[in-house]
């Protein structure tokens, strides 16, 4: 029973298999849900993260400032919550950006493997020979600081993985009789690519996408930490760590709290990716 990979269409089934991965997958899911929620409702309960109070610099946690204040007397708690917004947005946007370009190029590279595909894949090889973070740094240095510049910089760094992944899948999928049959019906190539090949790649792409969100957050934090990427007045976890780093002894929470957030989200996304991979793997159907 090869090729039995189609799905019973219930979303609950995927959730069931996903949940049966164990407590960790479930907890990870709710961690992400929690961060997304606070990012959305941030203005409802937070103080203005930019409001300075130079008389209250480097305050320890109190009822007024739950996590204390930073070098300019700004509320750390509010800054983390607003940082969540930008960090999550930047990682999601760069993930979508990379996925859209990478998947399209991957589909084309796999389908027209002879000439166009060869060119695309050699470019991918060239790209992969440069470490992604270095590459993002270069792009960031060229484009300058800012959220969208960072999104592009991180996104470009992730494109090759998608191309590789999708190209490989298309190479195997396009040999299938149903693709051959469809092209013999006189179907247009674009339709075959996006209506037949793409949906059959989806399970794998979703897993890759989830995992990439985690690494995008890391890249963003890394870029912001070294002063590229997102800089003041925009707040991101990475730039907060960089600010807090110099006052690590005085107010440890300033650097530690955003660091914990980064770690939590990245680890949670990785576990979700693992869980999804199992949930969407047809070979594990029925066993779980």
């Amino acid at each position, binding site marked *: 029973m090869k090729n039995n990979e*189609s799905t019973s269409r219930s979303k609950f089934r995927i959730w069931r298999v996903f949940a049966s991965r164990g407590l960790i997958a479930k907890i990870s899911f709710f961690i992400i849900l929690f961060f997304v929620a606070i990012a959305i409702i941030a203005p409802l309960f937070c103080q203005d993260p930019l409001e300075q109070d130079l008389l209250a610099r480097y305050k320890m946690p109190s009822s007024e400032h739950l996590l204390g204040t930073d070098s300019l007397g700004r509320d750390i708690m509010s800054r983390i919550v607003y940082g969540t917004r930008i960090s999550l947005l930047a990682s999601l946007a760069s993930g979508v950006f990379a996925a859209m370009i990478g998947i399209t190029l991957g589909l084309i590279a796999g389908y027209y493997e002879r000439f166009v595909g060869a060119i695309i894949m050699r470019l991918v090889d060239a790209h992969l020979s440069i470490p992604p973070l270095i590459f993002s740094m270069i792009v960031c240095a060229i484009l300058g600081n800012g959220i969208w510049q960072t999104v592009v910089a991180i996104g470009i760094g992730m494109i090759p993985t998608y191309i590789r992944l999708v190209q490989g899948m298309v190479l195997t999928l396009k040999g299938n009789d149903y693709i051959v049959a469809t092209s*013999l*019906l006189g179907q247009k190539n674009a339709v075959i690519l996006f209506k037949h090949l793409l*949906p059959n790649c989806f399970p794998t792409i979703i897993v890759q996408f989830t995992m990439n969100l985690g690494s995008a957050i890391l890249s963003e934090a890394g870029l912001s930490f070294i002063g590229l990427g997102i800089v003041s007045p925009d707040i991101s976890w990475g730039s907060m760590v960089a600010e807090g780093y110099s006052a690590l002894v005085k107010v440890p929470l300033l650097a530690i709290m955003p660091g914990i957030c980064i770690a939590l989200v990245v680890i949670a996304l990785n576990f979700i990716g693992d869980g999804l991979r199992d949930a969407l793997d047809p070979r594990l159907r029925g066993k779980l």
Partner: protein
Amino acid sequence: MSEDSKKVPFLKVEDLKMYFPVRKGLLQKTVAHVKAVDGISFEIEEGKTFGLVGESGCGKTTAGRCILRMYEPTDGKVMYRGRDITHLTPAQIRPFRHEIQIIFQDPYGSLDPRQSIGSIILEAIVASGRKDVLPKDRKAKVDELLTLVGLDPIMRSRYPHELSGGQRQRVGIARSLACNPKLIICDEPVSALDVSIQAQVINLFEDLQKKLGLTYVFIAHDLAVVRHISDDIGVMYLGKLVEVTSSEELYRNPLHPYTNALLSAIPIADYEVEKTRQRIVLENEIPSPIDPPKGCPFHPRCKYATETCKQTMPELKPYSEGHKVACHNLRTILNQE
């Protein structure tokens, strides 16, 4: 065209050759060729069935795919209704792409697992660009096609994994029919099915031929199946046709030693007769199509082989009306019998 159509065969394959290059090394130099199809010729009349038999790897599927123009043949000609389609570009083929269709061997791999049955057939109707089905009638046409192949129209909302092998094969047939084809290449359409289902599907093929006037190229390795459905049969061995004749004649009077061996492999249902059945067991393996033996490709396994067989390839010559054989030693073989 109508006057000529009597003289012009529906499908004519002339000295068709399909060599696949074997590439090696850094520069991908062509070091050899796999001679998958090595000069075959046959004709089919409209509304008839031509059976192509032979063991695995003899090139029958490749021959079918050359007719479909999935491959561009290395040499030779494929004439479809008097028109040379051998070297047409995809754009030139497009107008009658839908007239030549294929039915695959594997009913599991030939349907997109993420498409419902209805949408598979609907797509075929739309993609073939047929003008006779108006957009508003398409849904009705899907139901009509499903009924035609013996499936309940309710099936349209099902997905391939919910269907049995036989049902999937029927969907595959419905998809081919959706674009109103004239010629269907059946590439071992029943080999993957249970014997009981095989009979049903074969009967379906015959019904459809009667109803729609289809022409089939029926590829199979099972002679019993081919005999039932074919008008003419071509026996292939290592990329060459060794015997071509009507299906009755082939069973009554098989001439080529390879055909004889194939026929002797069909089991007989009657136990007593089966016990006395003489099987001709061929020795050795089928030679590699990269480096086929000189002369007759069958000579290393043929008990009648002579020096001539090792040197020259016998031509496909008429033995009697409508019965062609490629063998040097027909006389000897006939005398022995």
